[in-house]
């Protein structure tokens, strides 16, 4: 059983790369292998151009933030942040200075005397980041660092990660299963499935030019619609459709559907329907105010600009470019 198979990935200096995949896709294993916590059965790991396969984790000068934050429960915040510096035997005065600097950077200087159990989830995360950053690593590894936070904090933390990366310019590998996080944070995204790399590219490329059906269906919420069309699958994102005022304009693909269900989500509404020709199940996403009149059982024609449509080979699942 291989958790990660034949993955080749190059991260340029200073990049923020997101590894995106469902649980069990091998993204965490890949990260742990880079950290040196797992040993690859084949292949090379280079960090800063140097082969690091035989280096134990502590020689790789990397920092990692675990999902659980893995703070040392018996140490104060100050001692937690100081730990990586103590390990490289920095003089005490220098350690104190750096700890204060890192604490200030994350606004946790008033928490330095506390122990982890006295901190909130957001504070713990900041401590973990401060500890990771204090040694100025060459590579930052983050394993789902936001999944223990509630939705509101997560939003703030995303902005903070971005700011942090812009300030420090440290190469960052960030693992997540959350595509919104991936789109928002990554300069590039590597989508993984079944231990294999599916596609690597900018968020825009991943979203608009998915390399295969897996990526197409993984990105976006709800996922891309796929309509079988002979040996091909035609795909388009749920939000790219609209209801034409009159007849379907030129260069647009008509989508006559029977509405099954309408779900109002506040700003948007999801329209579930079946295509009249062929009966494919489709999901459309429309601004709530334009879909107010729709109800289940209604027949209605939507259309999608042909420039927004993508074609996939139904047999191989690979993208064949624009529809």
């Amino acid at each position, binding site marked *: 059983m291989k958790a990660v198979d034949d993955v080749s990935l190059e991260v340029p200096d200073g990049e923020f790369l997101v590894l995106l995949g469902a649980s069990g896709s091998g993204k965490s294993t890949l990260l742990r292998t880079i*950290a*040196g*916590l797992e040993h690859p059965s084949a292949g090379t790991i280079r960090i800063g151009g140097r082969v690091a396969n035989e280096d*134990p*984790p*502590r020689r*790789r000068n*990397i*920092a*990692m933030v*675990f*999902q*659980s934050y*893995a*703070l*040392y*429960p*018996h*140490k104060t915040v100050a001692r937690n942040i100081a*730990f*990586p510096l*103590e*390990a*490289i035997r920095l003089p005490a005065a220098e350690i104190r200075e750096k700890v204060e600097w890192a604490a200030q950077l994350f606004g946790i200087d008033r928490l330095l005397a506390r122990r982890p*159990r006295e901190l909130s989830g957001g504070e713990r995360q900041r401590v973990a980041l401060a*500890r990771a950053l204090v*040694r100025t690593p060459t590579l930052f590894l983050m394993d789902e660092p936001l999944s223990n936070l509630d939705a509101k904090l997560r939003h703030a933390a995303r902005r903070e990660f971005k700011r942090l990366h812009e300030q420090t310019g440290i190469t960052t590998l960030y693992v997540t299963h959350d595509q919104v996080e991936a789109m928002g944070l990554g300069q590039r995204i590597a989508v993984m499935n079944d231990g294999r790399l599916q596609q690597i590219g900018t968020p825009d490329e991943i979203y608009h030019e998915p390399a295969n059906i897996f990526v197409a269906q993984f990105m976006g919420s709800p996922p891309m619609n796929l309509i079988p069309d002979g040996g091909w699958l035609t795909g388009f994102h749920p939000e790219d459709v609209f209801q034409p005022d009159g007849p379907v304009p030129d260069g647009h693909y008509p989508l006559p559907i029977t509405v099954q269900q309408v779900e109002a989500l506040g700003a948007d509404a999801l329209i579930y329907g079946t295509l009249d020709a062929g009966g494919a199940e489709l999901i459309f996403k429309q601004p709530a105010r334009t879909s107010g009149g729709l109800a289940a059982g209604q027949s209605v024609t939507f259309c999608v600009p042909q420039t927004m449509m993508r074609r996939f080979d139904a047999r191989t699942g690979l993208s064949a470019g624009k529809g």
Partner: protein
Amino acid sequence: MAAARTLSLRQRDTRLAMGMVLPAILYIVLLLGIPIVLAVVYSLNDVTTGSPAMRFIGLRNFQGLLATPDFARAIGNTFLITTCTLVGVLILGTIQAELLMRPVRGKWLIRFLILLPWTAPASLSAIAWLWMFDSTFSPLDWILRGLGLLGHPGALFGDFDNAFWLGRSGLALFSIILVNVWRLLPLGTVIILAGLNGVPRDILEQAEIDGAGYFRRLFHIILPMLIPVFGVTVLFTFVFVFSDISTVFILTRGGPANATQVLPTLAFFTGVQGGSLGRGAATALFLLPVLAAVSILILALIRRREI
């Protein structure tokens, strides 16, 4: 039925709860409460096994004890044996547990063998140890003689053919501590092993990435995180050894010449064999405040360090 119907649900719950708790209360009162009260009563009276008559003499039993050199010696021995056993169990237990954490083939067999001394009845194992420490046929002596450490002039363990493990006061104390460590090491190891297993893998990996080598991880992360576990080990070992009578009773019966007398054996010899129940009860009661104090102290420590 009529009576049952007039009871509210809450009253019925209370009645059921009482019924459930009653056996435990009875058990504690009969087997622990009454003997302790009885011991207190005896200790304040002049009682002998010979007659049921009791004569109240206040604290004279305790005053008498404090004046006896044997009593002072027993207290000293009790603390010495307990402390040395504790230190031995903690150090060896940590080493053993740490070794048992590693992936080794046949780990279950090693764990089983390590647990064995604990499952053996105390009297049985003490008798085996009696042979090990036998004044003439001790296998330990064979080994020492074979190594040239015993039985010739200038040898480390003396120029006699035998070491007389239980016959010389210092060696006898050492032997008792050795047997106690042997008996309690399995329990200590298992408790510490459980603690080691409870250290989250994330934290160890984080420490590894943070640049900590093996010893830094051990002394700065693992051992400090195990302090509550050590507290439990100390508590168990202390209470067990402090109030244990079997090792000393079977190995030396307090000898030679009271050199290994501990509080439980002294209480037994004075109270039951010597017949002065009052004096014996006073001796035994001396264990109580010490055990209580140690328990409270350690439990408080564990609670403070709880994570």
